[in-house]
């Protein structure tokens, strides 16, 4: 039992630190990094808590989280890219 608690506490502390990084910034990329890290830590936490509760069949959830986290990060990247495209085009228009 106790080792689950230790790991959970470590994960929780790290989640807090990641949240602090997300609040602090300074750049948007730092925040995205923090969100990603927060997501993977949630996956770990869920896996550990599932064992702690003695219901390992709930690992499905952790899997779903991992997946969604990944897609979320890629969506953010696509967002950056589309913004860069916009900026480039605006710059071109200004040159013209």
């Amino acid at each position, binding site marked *: 039992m106790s080792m689950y608690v230790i790991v959970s506490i470590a994960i929780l502390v790290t989640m807090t630190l990641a949240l602090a990084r997300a609040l602090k910034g300074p750049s948007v990329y730092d925040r995205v990094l923090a969100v990603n890290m927060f997501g993977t830590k949630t996956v770990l936490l869920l896996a550990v808590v599932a064992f702690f*509760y*003695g*219901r390992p*069949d*709930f690992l499905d959830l952790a899997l779903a989280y991992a997946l969604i986290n990944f897609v979320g990060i890629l969506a953010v990247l696509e967002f950056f890219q589309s913004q860069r495209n916009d900026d480039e085009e605006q710059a071109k228009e200004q040159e013209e």
Partner: protein
Amino acid sequence: MELLGYYNYWVFAIVLMVGFYAVIVRNNLIKKLLGLAIFQSAVFLMYITMDKVEGATAPIIQEGVTDQIYSNPLPQVLILTAIVVGVSTTALGLAMVVRIKEAYGSIEEDDIIAKDRKS
């Protein structure tokens, strides 16, 4: 421990009102929708809090285990519905915001009001 039993409900009240504050005070329409999403999430927390039974586990019946008690399934069903309702509202609101941006060139409430006055 006595007071911790109410902690969830306090968090519910505070988060609810943080969201509500954003909805009524913030000028930006997307911010309003974010506030609305927080506002609705707080209600989910309230419902889910009441389903917990001490020492129970999620209401998925384990075969062969007889003395296990289970948490209340009903609030969970209700909140499943409410989550979907929430995301539907958000999506519709965002579609409106996109249209407003195209029609007015701004998503700030005071700009929109000013532009309507002019026309």
